């Protein structure tokens, strides 16, 4: 219960005003580039910066999607065509590991960068998880208190 309350409080009093991170990448001619990133349950602005003549697409896979991808099935959470540099808004349903897969449709090597702008928001999934932990803690505490009171009433009898 204490842990659940602390997690809830940490999320509510979060001072994160949004953060920016970027990573560079290189896609071979008609090839693919994959990167696994950890995302929070917050709105993101994905900035793909590549040369103007780049054509391809960006697929984002969640944890289940990554598993299916390794088995050969492609079930992206988001699929977007890319023509040169692009801005994409994406809000993950849940915090976790996501794969960004960039596929190139042109016959030359391309290098660029992915910028991730995390916007300020309260993560709903953390709220839900912490509430579950609090409720579980409350149930355990109640059960312990009840068993104690039953024991004490038996000894009084």
């Amino acid at each position, binding site marked *: 219960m*204490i*842990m659940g*309350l*602390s*997690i809830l*409080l*940490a*999320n509510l*009093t*979060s*001072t*994160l005003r949004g*953060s*920016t*991170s970027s*990573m560079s*990448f290189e896609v071979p001619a008609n*090839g*693919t*580039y*994959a*990167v*696994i*990133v*950890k*995302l*929070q349950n917050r709105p993101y602005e994905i900035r793909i910066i590549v040369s103007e003549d780049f054509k391809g697409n960006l697929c984002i896979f969640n*944890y*289940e999607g*990554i*598993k299916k*991808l*390794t*088995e050969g099935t492609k079930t992206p959470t988001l699929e977007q065509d890319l023509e040169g540099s692009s801005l994409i808004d994406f809000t993950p349903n*849940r*915090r*976790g*590991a996501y*794969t960004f*897969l960039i596929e190139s449709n042109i016959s030359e090597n391309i290098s660029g960068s992915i910028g991730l702008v*995390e916007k300020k928001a309260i*993560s709903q999934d953390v709220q839900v*998880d912490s509430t579950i932990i609090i409720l579980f803690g409350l149930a355990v505490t109640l059960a312990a208190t009840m068993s104690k009171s039953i024991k004490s009433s038996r000894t009084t009898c």
Partner: protein
Amino acid sequence: MSKNRFIVSLTWELKSLFRFPFPEVLLALFTYMIFLPRGSGFAFTVSSESLKWEEITRTIAFHTTRNVAQFSFFAYIPMGIFASIFATLVFAYEIENGLLKVHLSHPISRQSIFLAKLLSCFLIVFITFSASLLSYAFLDVTENAFYLILSPDLILKVLLVTALQSLFMLSVTISFSLYSARTSASLIGSFATIYLIQLLSESANLEFLPPISFREQASFLFSKTLPKLSQLPNFLIIPLVSVFLIVCSYLFFSRRLEVG
């Protein structure tokens, strides 16, 4: 017989520390500090041609635990405050109000009393801190929690980081508490020392002093390749200092300390 007495003494010490809700407050503070959202997550490139599920899950578990170990140094100040309180309550306060005299009148060696006191403080700090860190590790990428359980080496590394940090804090605060033998001096002095170490470490960027050294320890334990030999001194200095301080305190308590 003496083993039983040690356990009785340890239980007594734990009960006396649990009289106040210190462990609960400590757990709440640790969890709050560790779970505060921070921008740094993880990102790693994978070969898109040969994606292997086992490799991906293992790498996610590795990055999650490495982040947790790196975040552990955010709990430096709360840990310092509570280590000072515990050490003061268990040593300086008991010396000052004569409770230690009553302890020593029991048929139990001074060594056992010291070990019971040290272990009680260590257990509370270590268990609450590891609970916070491990819960973060498991909740960070919830879907990958099962694969984290399958990587006990990573969990053990997190526990080692926790144990080393707890040991350092307690070694400093217990030494201060024993040598000062005054409640107020111990409480203020030991925390001031911990805080001064942090100021020195961060202002002069001294990698062998905590809390920077805690981050270095985490990097050493969680390096992807074999750690460099040049990193070893930074990794070993703090554990060696901790052991030295605890041995000194042990010898002082068992041979030199005059009560009464």
